């Protein structure tokens, strides 16, 4: 049966964002380009009525609510959006999944400046040798806390967004602050 269904404009847009995010997680530390600037495109791509979302600013509540998601505390959230620099303590509240269901671990989406600030070295699956990136907007204490609490396969994924650029830091990757 020949004809392919045509994606709507919304589907085409969010598919492109989704592909960029998947590549970002597949190649940790490598910068990928997003179709647009900002976090709103990630909200409309990843969030739907089945999501429980936490965000640290009032402005994000509108777009998240329009996707049908419920706004919850960090402990219940499967997606967390941070416009400001998150404190290391927040990591202890994140959902890390369970041994039977590691996929229940949270996804953290933060804004950061890529290419300036602390120099990081990423190693692990998807890194072709150690990958070096510079990230401004997350403290060394944040990365130390991440390393302390991560117990693979439990953990959480991170996307760092700078304008129309994104870097993925999956739970499988070790991050050293140089």
């Amino acid at each position: 049966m020949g004809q392919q269904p045509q994606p709507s404009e919304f589907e085409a847009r969010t598919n492109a964002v989704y592909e960029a995010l998947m590549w970002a997680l597949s190649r940790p530390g490598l910068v990928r380009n997003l179709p647009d600037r900002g976090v709103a495109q990630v909200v409309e791509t990843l969030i739907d009525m089945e999501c429980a979302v936490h965000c640290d600013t009032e402005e994000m509540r509108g777009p998240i609510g329009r996707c049908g998601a419920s706004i919850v505390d960090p402990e219940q959230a499967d997606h967390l959006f941070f416009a400001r620099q998150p404190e290391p303590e927040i990591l202890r509240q994140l959902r890390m999944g369970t041994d039977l269901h590691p996929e229940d671990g949270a996804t953290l989406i933060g804004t950061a400046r890529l290419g300036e600030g602390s120099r990081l070295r990423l190693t692990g699956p998807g890194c072709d040798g150690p990958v070096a990136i510079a990230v401004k907007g997350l403290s060394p204490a944040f990365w130390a806390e991440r390393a302390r609490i991560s117990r693979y396969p439990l953990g959480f994924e991170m996307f760092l967004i700078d304008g129309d650029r994104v870097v993925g830091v999956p739970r499988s990757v070790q991050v050293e602050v140089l």
Partner: protein
Amino acid sequence: MAYVATRGGENAIEQSQRLFRAEMGAVTPERVAETRSAMPYLIDRVMGEASLYEEDLAALALAQTGGELYEAVLLLRAWRTTQPRLQVAAPVTQDRLFTHRRISAAFKDIPGGQVLGPTLDYAHRILATEVLSGDTHIPEPVNPSHSPAPAHYPSVAAWQAANDLFSAPVPDTTLGNDIPDITREPLLFPAKRAHSLQSLARAETGGVLALGYAAQRGYGQAHPTVNELRLAEAEVVVRHPRGTAFSAGRVKISQAEVVNNKRDQLELGFAATLGWNEVKVIAAATLDLNARGAEKGSATEEEFFLYHTEGVESSGFCIHFKLPHYVTFQSSLDAMRDARAQRAAKVTDKQPEPAE
């Protein structure tokens, strides 16, 4: 399972698919519309097994697969996975169902009375062969009754519970996204109640009947009496973003409650599915009734019947045996030849075992 990669036969594969589709000819909107209107019970069966209530898509799937039911259900389930989830509808209770048919084989005088509705239960089964010689078979028109029957009827089980005949199940207050969903989660055992009922609802009709019938004939522990059989339409009540609850339409559903009266209280088995499919819900409710305390590995044990009535998995497993198993089969042949050679060698040189 070691398969060889299929290579070099691309044209043969393409032509084999064309052969399959050439047999049924063009799939036209008219054919889909005719399938939908002429075969509501087949559409219902396919929609129930696909867990997707969409009559046009079900008719299209049937037309496109030439009525190969497993393929049609697989097409619909695959299509279903591509769709976004917009809302979780409000729960429906039996007494709010727009009821076309509700009968009880256990009690003659149930509250609201027996409502026969559409059925062939008491019909002569005679093939209308005159159609093949050119006549049109026009069904006799229904004589409307003087006053319309009520749309809603109370639940028979609720009436029995009120009369102390059995203890009503504890209501489950789980709502929305918290309701376990078998279309998203693996079936694990002991199964959640929601998973069991959802699995039965989307189970393959023939499989449910075979195992349910086995239980009814005596391979189960409990003999069912149909306490209530209902064909109805359920309102799909969803919520507008502004907060207003409204009905987005109605879906046909069937449900059966069967009871066992062996003990000092009635025991209840329940099943419901999308679409009107009486055989399936009675057989499924029988399995549900028999599941409690069933022996491990018996056909009335939940793990056994839920796994083996899953139509897409079972038909897929069955037909996968057609795929090339050349490597595994060659390896078994080698092992067989080797064993034979070793046996032959033992016979020819019957040397005494070396002394220890």
